[in-house]
């Protein structure tokens, strides 16, 4: 994760759809335009749906890294105020 300056991190591996995306969305709303959020999420449904939903809201996906333990780290840049 070194290549991005992370402003905030959340872990949504303990919740299921749709609260996964809700938690990501809440965290993004609290950031300023251009700030970067790191989201730890589970394999399967969360990793399939959360990045797509975040993209639909207009934010920028910077990176999706496989932690190789059944979780991923999604790096998102907030776009918009």
């Amino acid at each position: 994760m070194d290549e991005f300056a992370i402003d905030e991190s959340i872990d949504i591996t303990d919740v299921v759809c749709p609260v996964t995306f809700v938690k990501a969305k809440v965290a993004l709303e609290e950031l300023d335009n251009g700030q970067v959020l790191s989201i730890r999420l589970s394999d399967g449904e969360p990793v399939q749906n959360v990045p797509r939903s975040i993209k639909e809201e207009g934010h920028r996906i910077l990176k999706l890294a496989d932690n190789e333990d059944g979780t991923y780290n999604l790096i998102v840049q907030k776009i918009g105020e």
Partner: protein
Amino acid sequence: MAFSNEQLERYSRHIILQEVGVKGQKKLMDAKVLIIGAGGLGAPAALYLAAAGVGTIGIADADEVDLSNLQRQVIHSTPDVGKAKVLSAKESMNAINPEVTVNVYREFVNASNITDLIAGYDFVIDGTDNFPAKFLINDACVLSKKPFSHAGIIRFKGQLMTYVPGQGPCYRCVFREPPPPEAVPTCRQAGVIGAIGGIIGSLQAMETVKYIIGKGDLLTGYLLTYDALKMDFRKIKLPDVKNCAVCGENPSILQPFDYEQVACKL
């Protein structure tokens, strides 16, 4: 204010919506809505607004629950017969959502109390069943610069319009005066199909939510009519009325007043 995990889950379907999101849900939770009438229209409106998490909901009605109400007033249940409608409504609303503050006003709204009653609220829903009350609510809201949703239902028909100060005609612009008492039957005399209140009252709740979150187009400047038998919705553009007695250029109505209430002859 941060949302608890329980709130995130309760309101997740709202928060996911781009038009609502965290900001919109917070607006709903900060909003204060007054519903006048806990009957066919007020019942679905109150239930949906409570479920939506509207932070403070006032409900005004002087009546008790009657067995004949239950065919359409879905906020009340059979064991509630005889209970004050406002208390029955509050129990149902808090059963759905204990987070909502429900203020009850067990009184008839009239010219002497309406201005104080609406003062503490952001938006008013007219869920009443008679013309004197509808004109009173209109005049008081216009004079207090308070947005409100008008609606009426009878038989298989319903109508609604939304008033926002400065954004189109008021109810009096369109209808001028109550009709002569003998010209129009009440719901008691005419009958009303239960689900019509569900449809029109839910549309009032929808207008309220849109007003609070500030998204979409409101039914200002339009009257929506619904004929259930013909399954026909009509959205009628309303003209601007410069000589309206309450919101026109030279208004003659400067404070709310009561028309005579006519007892239902049955």
